[in-house]
Each structure stands twice: as structure tokens, then as C-alpha cells.
């Protein structure tokens, strides 16, 4: 028999840590915004200090977030991803982790603002609407597969979240590039050369935030890189889910709404990967497919868990 007593002190500590993590993330978001704002007013020193502080706050929020997840797990003597609240918290933690890992490899500080915004939203939603009190797992979830299948699903979801952000930025930027190009042949080139742009370039004021972003080709490569990391993990999550389903429900695949939407998500991202290698589909259209994939993932998560009844009804929302 597993130990079913709940350590309420730890559970409260977990909730409190999450609140502080959200505060740190929100402040980091402000920092990233400030970095951009001061950059535009060409106060370089202030701007880069704001950026550094923002990263510091992100790392602080990340540490608090890890603390929250760990204490939650300790308070209930199980993995901390047994209901929708806990799952959301983990997905955002992965998204922040992916961002931080990217940051150690490449200059992607521009992403900070755009990753923090959905993370804060996600956690806000998790902490209010989706919140579930600490408690033990239902028997259906009591299997070592929860460590394999769900971790894979969380990791892929968190990474898809980052790729979704990158894809939106790519679409905005490439549209901006085409517009700027139509203004005059020199404008876009001039802006691109000067990333980060300076006040001497006339085009930069027009584009504001968009001018400040890296060029669309790089955004596209980054987005692709993150999807090509997440897609095999998502594939593995579906397969691990099928193996678990075979043990728990006597069949590997039963077209349960969750299974079906995971497959739809998979197909959309598969279409994206194919489109990226097909003439006439690369760029814009491929990016739209990637966003459709992310939309399907959101349906798979929010709509299937709350609206459609199926076998994956572990949301824990009452």
C-alpha cells in the first residue's frame, strides 16, 4: 500500500512557491520589455542591464518553480503530474527550461518576452481555474508508465510551446520584411544589417518590435530546431501511451478522444516537417501548419480534458 497521507505543510509551501515563481516570471517579462524599450531609445547601457536582470529573474523564477513542483511531489509521495494543474505547471517549467537551454547556446534573449508571456498566462490559468488540491493518484494512473508517458508528453508540449512562439514571431517578421522590402530595396537590408537596430536606420522606427527581432530565416531555423527536438518525443509519448493503454485498458489504440487528438497533433507536425521539404510549401505555409499543430495540441489538452469525456479524464477539476 502506498503511503497516502498528505503533508499539508509541503503542499502549502508548493502553492506559495508557485505564486513567487509567477511573480518572478512576470517581473522578468517586464525586464525583457524594458530591454526592448530602452534599446529603441538607444539607451544601450540601461537596455542591456534590463536584459541581464530579466534573465536573472527568469532563472530565479525557474528555481522557485522547480521548488514548487518538488514540494508538491513530496507532499503527496508521488510524481507531481497527476492532474491538469500539476501538468500545466510542468509544461510551463519545460518551456522555461527549453528557453534557458537555448540561451546557453545561442543569442535568443529576444525570446524572453514572448516565452514569459504565455508561461505566466499558463501558470495563472493553472493556479486558478485548473487548481486541484494535493491528493493521491487514482488507481488508473498508478503505474510506472506515468513516469515515461507523461514525462514525454510534458517535455514535448513544453517544447512545442516554445516553437509555437517562434513560429508566430517568424510569421510576423517575414510579413514585416516583405512590407519593408516593398518600401524600398535598401530599407529591409539596412535594418537587418543593424540587428539590433540603431536610431540611424529610418526603417527601424516603423517596425519597432519587429525590426528588433532577428531575421525571419533565423526564426524559421530556430522554430524548426525546436520542433525537430519535440516531434520524436511526442512520437515516443504516443507510443508509450499505447503501450500503457495496452496494459491498462487491454488495447493499444482505441480512438479515445485524447488518443485521437494526439494523433491529429502528430499528423499536423508531420505535415509541417514534410512541408518544410516541399517546394511551394516552405516558409509561410509550413509555418501555418506548425501553428495548426500547436492549436491541435491545445485542443488535445484543454478541450479534450474539460469538455469531451473520455478515458483520459484525470483533470481533477470539480
Amino acid at each position: 500500500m502506498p503511503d497516502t497521507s498528505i503533508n499539508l505543510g509541503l503542499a502549502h509551501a508548493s502553492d506559495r512557491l508557485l505564486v513567487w515563481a509567477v511573480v518572478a516570471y512576470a517581473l522578468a517579462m517586464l525586464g525583457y520589455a524594458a530591454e526592448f524599450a530602452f534599446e529603441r531609445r538607444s539607451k544601450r547601457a540601461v537596455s542591456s542591464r534590463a536584459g541581464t536582470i530579466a534573465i536573472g529573474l527568469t532563472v530565479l523564477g525557474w528555481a522557485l518553480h522547480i521548488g514548487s513542483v518538488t514540494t508538491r511531489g513530496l507532499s503527496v509521495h508521488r510524481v507531481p503530474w497527476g492532474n491538469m494543474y500539476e501538468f500545466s505547471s510542468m509544461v510551463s517549467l519545460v518551456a522555461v527550461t527549453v528557453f534557458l537551454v537555448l540561451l546557453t547556446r545561442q543569442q535568443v534573449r529576444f525570446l524572453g518576452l514572448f516565452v514569459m508571456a504565455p508561461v505566466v498566462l499558463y501558470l495563472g490559468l493553472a493556479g486558478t481555474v485548473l487548481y486541484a488540491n494535493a491528493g493521491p493518484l487514482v488507481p488508473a494512473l498508478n503505474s510506472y508508465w506515468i513516469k515515461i508517458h507523461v514525462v514525454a508528453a510534458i517535455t514535448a508540449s513544453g517544447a512545442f510551446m516554445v516553437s509555437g512562439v517562434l513560429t508566430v514571431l517568424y510569421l510576423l517578421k517575414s510579413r514585416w520584411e516583405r512590407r519593408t522590402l516593398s518600401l524600398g530595396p535598401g530599407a529591409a537590408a539596412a535594418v537587418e544589417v543593424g540587428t539590433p537596430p540603431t536610431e540611424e536606420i529610418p526603417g527601424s522606427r516603423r517596425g519597432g518590435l519587429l525590426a528588433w527581432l532577428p531575421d525571419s530565416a533565423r526564426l524559421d531555423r530556430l522554430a524548426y530546431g525546436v520542433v525537430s527536438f519535440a516531434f520524436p518525443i511526442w512520437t515516443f509519448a504516443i507510443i508509450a501511451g499505447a503501450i500503457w493503454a495496452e496494459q491498462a485498458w487491454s488495447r493499444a489504440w482505441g480512438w479515445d478522444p485524447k488518443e485521437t487528438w494526439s494523433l491529429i497533433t502528430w499528423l499536423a507536425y508531420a505535415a509541417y516537417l514534410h512541408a518544410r521539404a516541399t517546394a511551394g510549401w516552405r516558409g509561410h505555409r509550413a509555418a501555418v501548419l506548425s501553428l495548426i499543430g500547436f492549436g491541435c495540441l491545445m485542443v488535445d489538452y484543454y478541450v479534450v480534458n474539460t469538455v469531451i469525456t473520455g478515458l483520459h479524464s484525470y483533470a481533477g477539476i470539480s
Partner: protein
Amino acid sequence: MTDLAETAQTAQPLDDTTALSTQPAPPQQPARGIARTVRYGWRRLTSMRTALLLLSLLALGAIPGTLLPQRGLNPVKVDDFLAAHPHLGPLLDKMSLFDVFAAPWFAAIYLLLFISLIGCLVPRIRLHARALRRRPPLAPRHLLRLTQSVQWDTADGATGVAARCRDLLSSQRWRADVHPEADGVVTVAAEKGYLRETGNLVFHVSLVVLLAGIALGGLFGYKGTVLVVQGQAFANVRSSYDIFQPSRLYSDSSLAPFSFRLQKFTAAYQPDGTPENFDAQVRYESHPGATPSTSHVRVNHPLHAAGANVYLVGHGYALHIQVRDPHGRLVYDNATPFLPDTSMFASHGVVKVPDGLPHQLGLTGFFYPTYVATAGGPDSSYPAPRDPVLLLAAWRGDLGLDKSAQSVYSLPVASLAHIGNAELSPGESWRLPDGSRVSFVGVDQWATFQVAHDPGKKLMLAAAVFIVAGLLLSLRVRRRRIWIRARPAGDGENPGRTVVEAAGLARSDSERFAAEFADLVQRFGAPTSAPPEED
């Protein structure tokens, strides 16, 4: 595969060939009529655009299957929907929208997708097999035109430089060749990352194998559900099942002759009544006469019987009820399964006593494991039997057992005479007006088991492993080429020295290749240059 030399000369990085790109085949001899149409149709079907279209169609087609109730998942909901939408319902039904995943149009989409896939896999495999045997392509004429290129000079001879570069590349598992050219020029051509395409092909072939595994299970497997009361036994023959779903090509001979007895069923609940743990202890025999062994069947923990898996899928209470005639003779003595209606296991059930009494007797009962009286009537407040109460109603008349098949859980009360009600706790009995006696002896448990045999399972698992492995290779490995040309210095250069040019080309992830290239040429002996351009 694109012409290598040409690609090199245009100095364009090759595409991320992450998927099976199916370039239209080179124009063939003009054929006439049908042959031409067929060939054209086939080329269209196996094109990447068609694959994209079919992938999207498959995704779109699956959506109604998650929004509308499905017969395969919940037939009752489908009936409810049809009753609620008398006009729309039949129309949707005609389009198989309540059986989306068994619908002919859905099958058409995925079969076309797989035909298209096989159609482009076969030529791709042939091409790749040839590419695996081929040597790296010769160096293009103007190496320095490539984006990744560098030039330096050295005192070593051209042949020596080339040999050293080749050895270095070979030691890092590059496929590398040395080609002597005219005027003492020596070139090295090297290539790496063939595993990308191998992984790509393995991934797609495994998808086809996965489909074959699914088909195997769908054609030869079986599935059945059976309710077993604690203490009773089940033998794996078709007639033992309450529900049996054979596949198309199933034959009774695929039923392995195992049996088991449900020795003990235990359920544990949290204080609020949510389930915590179920355990069915069974005594299992792999075939008649085999040494029995004890196992535990739990949620997430099936019994791996010979040739099939046994899953615990449900449980409930079986009430031990006895009926005696006015002389005290036992006419009914059974643990009668009651079906749960609520999560707290308020259950209903029926007892039928057709023989042994002057008239046929029927009992309808409601059982509450933890009885509470609420404003809405009696109910159960906890799923475990803390205060079990059985409410019985007795009926007299013709039970109609010989007329038509009827459920063991229902009684045609409309045609029967009501002769009394009683509320019983375990151990209590109730005397009916005619002097016969009904006793509630005790509470037993039952469990439902699903037995499933899927012969395609192992194939599917193997395919799944290769799907992930192939995918990882095709997305992680980068195909890349490097050329080195060493030539004796010409006029206007340092006499007596060797001029070395090196260039590289990557199919994808040019940033990482830039770093790799810079590192390699440094080992070749190039002076440490400016760091590769920051992206």
C-alpha cells in the same frame, strides 16, 4: 537525390530533407492513353503534395470522431444522440460519422496515404542503397565559392597534406577518398551522415510495418468480457463469455485453453470514496491439468495468460440470497451479481426463481453498501460495505423465461403481481405472504475481466521502436560533405609551398556545421582564422 556536383557549384545549402520528398520522376518516353494516365496518376499519388494533402485529410477526418459520439466507444450515447436529433442524426449516420474510425472513407484516406508512402519508399530505398555504395562526389572546381571555405598554404607536399586530411577524416568516420589530379594537384572528397536517410527510410518503413501489425490484430485477434463472482471460475471457451468480439478471420481454435478461479477481490478507497486500489487474486491454470499458480490482476497489471491477456475492468457486489419454500426447502441459493449505478456503488439486481415454488417468484432489489436516507430516497454514501442494506420487492406470476431471451438484470414487472417489499441487512430474512422465506445471507464481490488476444502486438512494438529510432536519426544526423584541394603554389605565390583549399557543404543545420568545419580545417593545419560568422 539532387546532382551533387551541380549543387556544390551553386553553393546553395541543400534542403532539410526531413521527409520523403518525392521528386517527380524524370520524364519518360511518351506513352499513350491509359498507360499514360496511370503513370501520371501514380506520379501524382506518390508526390509530396499528395502526401501532405492526405496527412491533412486524415487529421481532419479524425476530428468528427472525437466530437460526435462513437459506436465503438459508447453505443448508448449514439442512441441518445439519434433520439435527440431525429433529422440530423440519420444523415450523419449515413456518412458513418458515428463509426468514423471504421468508416470506408476514413479507411480510403489512410490506405491511399500508405499506398502513396510505399510508392515513394521503394524508389527511395533503391536510390539510398546505391548511394550507400557510392564514393563521395568529386570536388567542385571552385572550392572557394562555397559558403564554408578557407585557403592557406603550407610547406608540406600536396600528397602528404591530402593523405593526412584523409586519415583525419576517416578516423572521425567520414567516408573519404584521395584523388590525384593533373599537375601535382591532389584532392580529398569526404562525406558523412548517410544515417540521416537510413533513419528516414527506417521510420517510414516501420510505419508500414505498424499498419501491418494493426491489421494482423484486427484480422486474427479476439476480445471478450466476463463477470466472475468471488469463488467462481472461468474457462476460456467462447460460451463462457458474456460479451465476445471475434475478429474477421478468428476461429475458435485460437482460444487458448486456460482457466482461472477468482479467489478474492479487494478494493480500497480513500475517505471520500474515490478508489485507491483494486486487486483480484486468481488461481490460474494455463491448460487443464496444469499446476495452478496464484496471481494478482490489478488495474495496469494484467495477467499474462497463455496466448492472451486478462485485464481487470470492473467490479461490483454479488449478494448471497437464499429462497426457501414454505416447508423450508432451499430453492434458490446464489451469489447474485448486482450492477453498480453510482460511484458509491448503489446497485440494482434481480433474482429469478422459476422452479420449486407453487408459482414463479421474482425479486427486484436495490443495494446500498453504506446506506443513507436522503431527501431523494435511499442512497449509498461510501463504496465499501460499511452498513449494507438490501431493499427488495417481490413479484409473483409468469416470469416469461421460456418465451424470449431476457437480461438477467431485468424483470418484466408489468405483467407480474407485486406481493411485498422488505429492507434487509445481512443475516436477516423475510417471510413472504405465501410462507416462503427470502434470506440475505451476505455480501460477496464480483469482478469483470476482459480477455484480449492480439497477435499483431509484438510486431507493433518492434515497429514502434524502429519508428522512434528512425525518426531520431533522420532529424538529428546531418548529411555533410568536405573537399580539400592541395596544389603546388603557382606563379605569384610563395614558391615551393603548397596551397590548400578546403570547403564544406551541409544539408541542414548550417550553424553547427560552420563550427564543425572550422574545427576540422584547424586540425588540417589551417591557421586559426576569425571565428565562423555569428548567426
